[in-house]
């Protein structure tokens, strides 16, 4: 994102004296340019110009020769007298003594001295120190030490004024070298939203700064004098035979030739410095100027070596299989959507990816004297796609994909040519190629009160008009209460009245918007399902389970790990096109697929038992094909919405839990019980009860459960159908082993939405008779295979209306009841709503119960 050196910004707008980077960042954020980073001054403290008065070379034992130097650092910093114990070389005069290892300077030279108290880049604090037998009262600095990089003239050593880094600079001893070398520049890096392409330039940011602060602003684009062309320059053809989304790839192409440039000409120091501060590397005068003008005005430019060009220049789409080696030395295979700059016979040579990056074949070199400057307007979509396709987010592409002011190309090319000639000599051709058209933004009709209606501030007519004019719009009245607003060429984002309202709101200031809590018409609170989910989760937490939240991504082999049969519905998983991790390409079809690895992780981190639950989405592929993508900005038809719904995976929220190991800590009350299959059933029932529903348990062999210790859970729907809503039981030993869980770990999973839906909307009152109950116990002997629930159901049938409660309290197997049989003992409480039960009545019910159990499950009353 763009870096804005404050001194550069100040060239286009008035920065009040002493304005720091933090203040500028704060001001810019008010108008929507967020601060990304602040780079403070690189050097602080007394960095001054010094004149070398005396220089004594002292060879050292280590073979080095050091310079013992007396330096005049100006009256403010000089010591009047030498230290008698440690005198400086030569004649005693006001000065400082410094030891220096570099040799590229002589007596009389002006150098840059960091006196004690200076802090150099890298937090390097300078202090007086004793070295090589003398006190060195400061340091004579090199370009590297000041963060300026190696000497541009290749003189490896300290900076001497008039040469290298300090070419063209001079001064007097004691002058502030920070200002002289431009080391005080603070830089603000800002974030530019995609609608504000023009802020990828000093021109645009200075404009915004003036909006934020009211400071004066001069548009640097208007300062460029563009001479009238005497004819057409290098031939250019724009041939886009495959526009993207109906937009021509290149709508304007300016080519301007400059001849006779001195190839050895250097980039001026100030320009190189600004490029560096803005985050670009200085390369050569021609390249640096094109970059400089781009950073300043926002128009990307490209310079071709004219000698290597073979006109005409043709802008066209790539042909299949074409290749290009870009300036970063990467050979790229081009896509037919890529827009190219080409030349040569039949436009067969590819010069570059339009608006993204040039190629090596026509690159300017150390011997280039004649150039062709390209300044074009490229389609944002085309540039964005090419930059993304080739992973080439260049400075040019960043600007083009956000939109570049289409009125800039000729101005920018002219400005660049002028700067090149100014610093490198040569001649600007009087013939200019300017091919194509400029489309200005369309006028927008704006109701005078539109901003007030949307923002809630009664803006004055002056504020509305003034704000829009400030951002560059032309504003004309249209009848009594409307305006016709024509946005400036650099604001292609302004399309609707709402866009203009935002401009008015942000220029007047978002801080002015009052705070008014709206009064909603009154909602219905949480839905039944929303409340019920909370209840179910709370019930499990109260019962000892800890809620986790883990992602739905699962490995492809999880279905095998969980022993799902080949035709199991839970294998119908949704596959991801670009999963975060290659080994987790599927979405879970069961919550246990997520919880079992989470259980393993917790055990691996030192937990001795596991008792976790999660409510979350599970997904099953619908097989409904692709989802249609109807047109934007209009309501899709019911058929389109239905097609979307049909394509989407089946999704529901389920409640899953895994529990294994000791259910509590070792206790003085006795050893803790281990979590097991009974807990899985009990917890599932509690969750169901918490939402007002009741589960039916049916013994079943279901993966991933133990074949003899698993059950399916069912509810009775409001329509009276019994449907499966989950499973519960002990995990299969192989699954327990696969996830390293405690022996006999159990689990359950419930389609909580279906369970909630099965709960009665209204629970009707049950009568509470006050006649005394009769308590009768029964023990029935049945076959092992008979489920307790069947016996209980038979008892209920036998007891009829009198049954108040049936509760199994004992299970017994052993010799007394015989092989393959078990005894189930039930406590039955009978009560009548009509009167006290007599012995005769009770006896009749007993007989009825015994008969019912005998006929339903073959149970015999145990004597």
């Amino acid at each position, binding site marked *: 994102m763009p870096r804005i050196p404050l001194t550069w910004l100040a060239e286009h707008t008035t920065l009040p004296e002493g304005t720091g980077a933090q203040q500028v960042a704060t001001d810019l954020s*008010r108008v*929507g340019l967020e601060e990304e980073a602040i780079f403070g001054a690189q050097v602080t403290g007394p960095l001054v110009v010094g004149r070398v008065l005396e220089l004594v070379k002292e060879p050292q034992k280590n073979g080095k020769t050091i310079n013992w130097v007396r330096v005049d650092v100006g009256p403010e910093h000089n010591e009047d007298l030498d230290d008698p114990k440690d005198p400086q070389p030569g004649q005693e005069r006001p000065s400082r003594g410094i030891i220096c290892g570099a040799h590229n300077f002589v007596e009389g030279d002006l150098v840059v001295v960091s006196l004690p108290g200076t802090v150099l880049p890298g937090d390097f604090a300078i202090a007086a120190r004793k070295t090589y037998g003398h006190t060195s009262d400061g340091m004579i600095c090199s370009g590297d030490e000041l963060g300026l990089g190696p000497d541009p003239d290749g003189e490896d050593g300290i900076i001497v004024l008039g040469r290298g880094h300090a070419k063209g600079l001079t001064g007097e001893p004691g002058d502030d070298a920070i200002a002289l070398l431009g080391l005080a520049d603070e830089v603000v890096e800002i974030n530019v939203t995609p609608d504000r392409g023009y802020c990828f330039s000093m021109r645009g940011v200075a404009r915004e700064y003036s909006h934020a602060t009211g400071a004066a602003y001069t548009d640097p684009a208007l300062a460029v004098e563009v001479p009238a062309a005497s004819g057409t320059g290098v031939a250019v053809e724009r041939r886009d035979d495959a526009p993207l*989304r109906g937009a021509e790839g290149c709508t304007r192409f300016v080519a301007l030739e400059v001849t006779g440039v001195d190839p050895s000409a250097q980039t001026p120091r100030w320009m190189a410095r600004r490029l560096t501060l803005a985050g670009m590397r200085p390369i050569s005068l021609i390249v640096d100027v094109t970059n400089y003008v781009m950073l300043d005005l926002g128009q990307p430019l490209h310079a071709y070596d004219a000698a290597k060009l073979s006109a005409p220049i043709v802008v066209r789409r790539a042909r299949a299989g074409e290749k290009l080696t870009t300036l970063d030395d990467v050979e790229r295979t081009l896509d037919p959507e890529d827009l190219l700059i080409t030349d040569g016979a039949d436009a067969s040579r590819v010069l570059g990816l339009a608006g993204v990056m040039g190629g090596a074949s026509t690159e300017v070199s150390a011997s280039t004297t004649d150039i062709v400057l390209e300044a074009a307007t490229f389609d944002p979509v085309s540039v*964005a796609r090419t930059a*993304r396709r080739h992973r080439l987010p260049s400075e040019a592409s960043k600007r083009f994909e956000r939109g570049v002011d289409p009125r800039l190309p000729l101005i920018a090319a002219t400005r660049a040519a002028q700067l090149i000639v100014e610093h490198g000599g040569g001649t600007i051709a009087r013939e200019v190629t300017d091919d194509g058209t400029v489309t200005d933004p369309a006028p927008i009709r704006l109701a005078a009160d539109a901003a007030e209606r*949307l*923002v809630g501030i009664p803006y004055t007519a002056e504020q509305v008009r003034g704000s829009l004019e400030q951002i560059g719009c032309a504003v004309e009245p249209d009848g009594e209460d409307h305006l016709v607003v024509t946005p400036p060429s650099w604001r292609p984002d302004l399309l*609707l009245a*709402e*866009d203009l309202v935002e401009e008015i*709101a*942000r220029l007047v200031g*978002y*801080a002015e*918007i*009052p*705070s*008014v*809590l*709206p009064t909603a*018409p009154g*909602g*219905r609170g*949480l*839905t039944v399902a*929303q409340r019920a989910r909370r209840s179910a*989760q*709370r019930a499990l*937490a109260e019962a000892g*389970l*800890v809620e*986790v*939240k*883990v992602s739905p991504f699962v490995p492809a082999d999880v279905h095998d790990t969980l022993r799902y049969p080949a035709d199991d519905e839970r294998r119908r998983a*949704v596959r*991801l*096109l*670009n999963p*975060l991790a290659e080994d987790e390409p599927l979405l879970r079809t069961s919550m246990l697929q997520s919880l079992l690895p*989470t259980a393993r992780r*917790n055990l691996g981190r030192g937990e001795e038992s596991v008792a976790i*639950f*999660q409510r*979350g*989405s599970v997904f099953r592929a619908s097989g409904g094909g*692709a*989802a249609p*993508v109807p047109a*934007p900005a209009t*309501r899709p038809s019911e058929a389109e919405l239905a097609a979307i719904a049909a*394509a*989407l*995976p089946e*999704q529901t929220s389920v409640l899953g839990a895994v529990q294994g190991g000791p*259910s*509590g*800590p070792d*206790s*003085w*009350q006795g050893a803790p019980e281990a979590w097991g299959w009974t807990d899985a059933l009990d917890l599932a029932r509690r969750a169901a009860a918490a939402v007002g529903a009741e589960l039916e348990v049916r013994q079943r062999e279901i993966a991933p459960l133990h074949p003899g210790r698993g059950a399916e859970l069912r509810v009775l729907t409001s329509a009276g159908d019994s449907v499966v809503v989950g499973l519960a039981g002990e995990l299969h030993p192989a699954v327990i082993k696969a996830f390293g869980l405690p022996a006999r770990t159990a689990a359950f999973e419930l389609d909580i939405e279906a369970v909630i839906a099965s709960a009665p909307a209204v629970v009707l009152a049950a009568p509470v008779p006050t006649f005394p109950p009769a308590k009768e116990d029964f023990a029935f002997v049945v076959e092992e295979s008979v489920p307790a629930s069947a016996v209980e159901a038979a008892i209920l049938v036998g007891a009829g209306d009198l049954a108040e409660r049936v509760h199994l309290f004992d299970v017994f197997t052993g010799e007394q009841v015989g092989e393959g049989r078990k005894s189930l003992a039930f406590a039955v409480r009978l009560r009548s709503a009509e009167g006290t039960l007599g012995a005769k009545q009770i006896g009749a019910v007993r007989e009825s119960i015994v008969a019912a159990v005998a006929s339903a499950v073959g149970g015999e009353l145990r004597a």
Partner: protein
Amino acid sequence: MSETNPAPGGPAIDEQAITAAVDAALAAIAAAPDTATLKQVRIDHVGDASVLSTANRAIKDLPKDQKAAAGKLVGQGKGRVQQALAARQGELAAAEEEAALAAETVDMTLPTDRRPRGAAHPLSTLTDRIEDFFVGIGWEIAEGPEAESSWLNFDALNADPEHPSRSLQDSIYLAPEGSGMLLRTQTSPVQVRAMLERGAPLYVACPGTVYRADEIDATHSPVFHQVEGLAIDKGLTMANLVGTLDAFAAHLFGGAPVTRLRPNHFPFTEPSAEMDFRCFSCDARLGLDHDADPECRVCGGTGWIEMGGCGMVHPNVLRAAGVDPEEYQGFAFGLGIERILMLRNSVADMRDMVEGDVRFSQHYGTEI
């Protein structure tokens, strides 16, 4: 009374003997050390064989003229004894109960954690609190699927076909290529669904899980939770947006919070803004005239916390959802729930929330 002339055929009711029997009984009662002894005292002194009972039985055989006096003598004596017995019984029983309870003393500081309680995930609890706020101001909570269509996630929200968030680098799509479906990157499609289903006016908050193709680190997770708000009605303005955010910030962080809007850009709103809450932790919370603590962990010394994006719903979004932008307008905003939790409850590392480590949830219990 005369000591001569005893009644024939029965024991004489001798005033002296009766008095002695009563005195003996009272002495025995007073001397009984416990309720068991007292029970024997009762048998000895007022039981069937006791002097008093025997005398009582003899009264009926006395001459008529003596009956009244004898009855009074025996009755009063027996009454005194019974009264003393009851009193002593009460005393002894109370003392014995006290001793028995003292013997049952246990160490009340023993741990009672045979089956420890579990815990809710703090994100769930915080989401509940957020929902409760919106329900409290009359809004409803809307929901929608996590695997969503591209149209609802992007196109309906006015995202350009070229918008970078649509790329495979940013969003997680369902296979195969061109499925038109992805894991929703925001809960905004729920807003569109709510508008399509219910129309305007509409006031809904949409909390939920969202997905981005991000690497996980201390402050980013590819799976996280958002809450978005949407209000569509006649004449709603940005001032109403500010009012809602102010009330929300006050609910979450307490005090009299200050919110700030900064211009920003989102495809689905126009005007758009970034919302900042004034830091609730350091001195900055006291108002705009108080400087932030430069070392503040919550606001990083800026005095402000970035909370998310907001703005006035773009007319194209209303149109896509079948709402007439000429008649209705409204605002929308979105916040990250993890971020709120991290700030509000000082969670240092986002990974703690998503790895399912029970110690993270256990710490919070079921309220935060």
